[in-house]
């Protein structure tokens, strides 16, 4: 089975996120006062061959810990969907 996996990587909560702050200030200047708590990170999408969704998630978690995210500065979330390219 192949799974489509989406990884969201965001600056670790509580760490200074100057990019998120700059975007938040821009939103305020553009008259979006309803926006707050803005953070900017990155998204990684990949297909993973694995027998189950849980296996796919476990594999991607290892990829996050080894490569995709820096454990000192970043947090990540993983979503596994069906429908990766076979």
């Amino acid at each position: 089975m192949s799974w489509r996996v989406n990884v969201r990587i965001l600056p670790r909560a509580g760490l200074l996120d100057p990019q998120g702050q700059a975007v938040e200030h821009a939103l305020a200047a553009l008259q979006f006062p309803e926006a707050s708590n803005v953070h900017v990170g990155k998204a990684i999408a990949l297909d993973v061959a694995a027998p189950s969704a849980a296996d796919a998630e476990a594999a991607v978690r290892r990829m996050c810990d080894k490569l995709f995210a820096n454990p000192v500065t970043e947090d990540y979330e993983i979503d596994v969907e069906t429908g990766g390219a076979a």
Partner: protein
Amino acid sequence: MIRVAVVRFPGSNCEPEACRAVVRAGGEAFYVWHRDADLSGADAVILPGGFSYGDYLRSGAIARFSPIMDAIRRHAAQGGPVLGVCNGFQILCEAGLLPGALARNAGLKYLSRPVDVRIERNDTAFTSAYEVGEVIRIPIGHGEGRFVASEEILDELETGRQVVLRYAGSGRADAPGNPNGSVRDIAGICNREGNVVGMMPHPERLAEAVLGSDAGHRVFTSLVAWGSIVGARTE
């Protein structure tokens, strides 16, 4: 004579400056390619600045998997001196050879400017020719130089005397302290053993008087002096 390997990654910069600074200090310097599997018998290693692998993903995130890194790990484990400058510092943190990480500058801008840094310890192979407390002005050139670590790690760094360089506010407008928001004004650290040192400023860029200052020169005379002490011991 001490033999110093300067590692070249795709996107490295200032490697000729690093070699020249070593040679001017009385050592021998040569390049090793990041795909090499050994350090050609080097006594010390310098990881230069630049933008290895285009800073893809994060600064240093991909360079840390280069084949040469295994050789550097072995060299460091045996107590061999390793200096990472700028991107080299980022690579050493990503590789786990130094604690913490370098995040986007607090002001978001890429900064290319002189900074004043205070020497916090002079018992490393790269700072022995300076006085503790001495403030030197050397250049930075980075977009991701904001040192961050957990409070726990920071306290460990302080108690273990692992902070080697700190940004020093001189009070002068042309070189204010802490340019990038680094926690505790940290500009350079070392590992527990003190043989692996990383710093964001570039001493090799300002290491001869013809450039207006040779404030960085003693990083390299320190290393050459270390080499002669170790050489004398092993002979």
